[in-house]
């Protein structure tokens, strides 16, 4: 049984109202299911309440957003009043917003419902970031900070790259955390569970963004939910590289935490990555493994006529938008092809200011926000074949929409948008001798 502080008992017993009591009840059931010894305090919650779903719509129609919050975010059937968020709580990606109207088969009713939900949650103090990359827009937990986040690609970034501590939370646990400031202290919150479990030895140097995505997809497939430690002469990753790597590893497997000694903060050295345990025998990543992952990500593509290009999964960094804009300067998209760049609305404001949005739109592309095709299950009408530079989107979108996929570099994707044809191929690996 989870041990509670006096403060936590008071919340459970109703001192702060029914909603807080229900939240504590859910957290206690959840902590007990996990076998957590106690709860951690948190001041940083990232969840998703606003995205439309049939179940949510039904609840809203029954009893408004309070009802939807009670059931979905607290697992509570009572009529409760939703209090203000107790701790800073942000909204992650949700469904498409206004900018989607009329450009894809996405329901106007969903857009309206979501806007309404957004107003409701804003009035309760939720910070609507509307992105899967809160760390790109000012929600930057500090090293060792206990946080309660959803979104697998954000969770793996927060744990591994920022050294914050979170499990892969869900709607009810983040909802309950937001009004109590508590989350079960289990799993990734405890140092002893953060050490590496698998050693991956790369014989290749990563030559860029695509390489980091391929490597991440390999690693996730190889270790599933475990905690891989990557060594080798990998080169210096930047934000976009690690964002891409982690999202891929969280898609092909369920990686929530990894170490790259010297490049991620929890492991200055290989030894530190494994704690007191000896590193296990290594798995090798070389040319053949890289090629196999590339081929597997490209096994769903048949037709080389590309209707749709998607950049920005996880949501594009400023550098990525700048790269797309540069690649599209003085070019025009093929008549039958759409190109979308997904980014947080806050970064779209920077893209506008830098003239990147205008360059992309002049070529016929779009910079969209809040969601993505996989999340909202919507691509341009009639899309049969899509291309992306994201291993994660290539993993999910064909399954979700039943379309073909090509995976390549950012520049190959832009080329496909301009020519309407997929002409990508895997560049030679940088083998370390």
């Amino acid at each position, binding site marked *: 049984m989870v041990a509670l502080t006096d403060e936590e008992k008071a919340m459970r017993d109703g001192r702060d109202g029914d909603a807080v009591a229900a939240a504590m009840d859910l957290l206690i059931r959840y902590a007990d299911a996990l076998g957590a010894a106690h709860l951690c305090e948190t001041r940083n919650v990232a969840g998703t309440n606003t995205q439309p*779903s049939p179940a949510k719509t039904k609840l809203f129609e029954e009893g408004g957003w309070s009802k939807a919050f009670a059931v979905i975010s607290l697992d509570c059937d009572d009529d409760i009043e939703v209090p203000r968020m107790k701790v800073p709580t942000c909204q992650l990606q949700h469904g498409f917003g206004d900018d989607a109207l009329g450009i894809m088969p996405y329901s106007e009713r969903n857009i309206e419902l979501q806007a309404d939900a957004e107003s409701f949650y804003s009035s309760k103090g939720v910070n609507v970031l509307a992105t899967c990359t809160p760390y790109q827009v000012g929600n930057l937990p500090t090293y060792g900070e206990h946080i309660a986040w959803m979104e697998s690609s954000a969770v793996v970034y927060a744990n591994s790259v920022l050294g914050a501590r979170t499990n*892969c939370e*869900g*709607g009810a*646990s983040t909802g309950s955390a937001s009004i109590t400031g508590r989350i079960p202290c289990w799993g990734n919150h405890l140092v002893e569970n953060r050490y590496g479990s698998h050693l991956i030895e790369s014989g290749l140097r990563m030559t860029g963004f695509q390489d980091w995505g391929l490597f991440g997809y390999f690693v996730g497939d190889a270790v599933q939910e475990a905690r891989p430690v990557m060594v080798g002469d990998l080169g210096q990753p930047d934000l976009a590289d690690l964002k891409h790597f982690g999202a891929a590893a969280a*898609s092909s497997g369920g990686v929530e935490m990894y170490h790259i000694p010297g490049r991620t903060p929890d492991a200055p050295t290989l030894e530190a990555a494994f704690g007191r345990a000896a590193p296990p025998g290594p798995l090798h990543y070389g040319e053949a493994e890289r090629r196999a992952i590339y081929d597997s990500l490209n096994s769903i593509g048949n037709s080389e006529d590309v209707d749709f290009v998607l950049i920005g999964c996880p949501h594009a960094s400023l550098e990525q938008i700048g790269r797309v804009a540069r690649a599209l300067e003085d070019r025009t998209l093929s008549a039958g092809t759409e190109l979308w760049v997904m980014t947080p609305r806050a970064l779209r404001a920077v893209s506008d200011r830098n003239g990147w949005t205008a360059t992309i739109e002049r070529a016929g592309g779009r910079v969209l926000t809040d969601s993505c095709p996989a999340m909202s299950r919507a691509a341009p009408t009639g899309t049969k074949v899509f291309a992306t530079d994201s291993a994660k989107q290539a993993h999910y979108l064909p399954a979700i929409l039943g379309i073909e996929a090509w995976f390549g570099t950012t520049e190959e994707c832009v080329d496909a948008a301009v020519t309407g044809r997929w002409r990508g191929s895997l560049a030679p690996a940088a083998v370390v001798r």
Partner: protein
Amino acid sequence: MTGAAGTRLVLRGRGIVPGRVAGRALVSHETISGWGGIEPASGTIIERRHELYGICFTGKVLVFPGAKGSSGWSGFFQSTRLMGTAPLAMVFTNLTTKAALGAIVTRVPTVTEFEDDPVAKIATGDRVEVDADNGLVIVYGPRPGHPR
């Protein structure tokens, strides 16, 4: 009850959502995704390369190694409850936050942390009783006395 006729096997684990139910097992040897993995409206597995692609889990005792994929897992299974398509019970091997929270909000009896791996011991179609109050899963086999 563990001594009833036709009892094949008693698996001992830990109940994480209380309750007792009996029904037919649906066993997945692969982990299950929520988002991109199931369709709550119909209670079916929709991941194209999954061994249970197209199969409905509604009313079944869902036996699986664990949860994978997006953090929406619990939300997707919660939706099955709200849409009336939930499984009857959950029996899984690996305890993670996704699976634990998912089981809780699906509100079905759930047992995990077994001494023996339930995925290896239970077959689709087996009649099983899930006694989450005591952390037990009793496997009766496809029909009483039928050799496997």
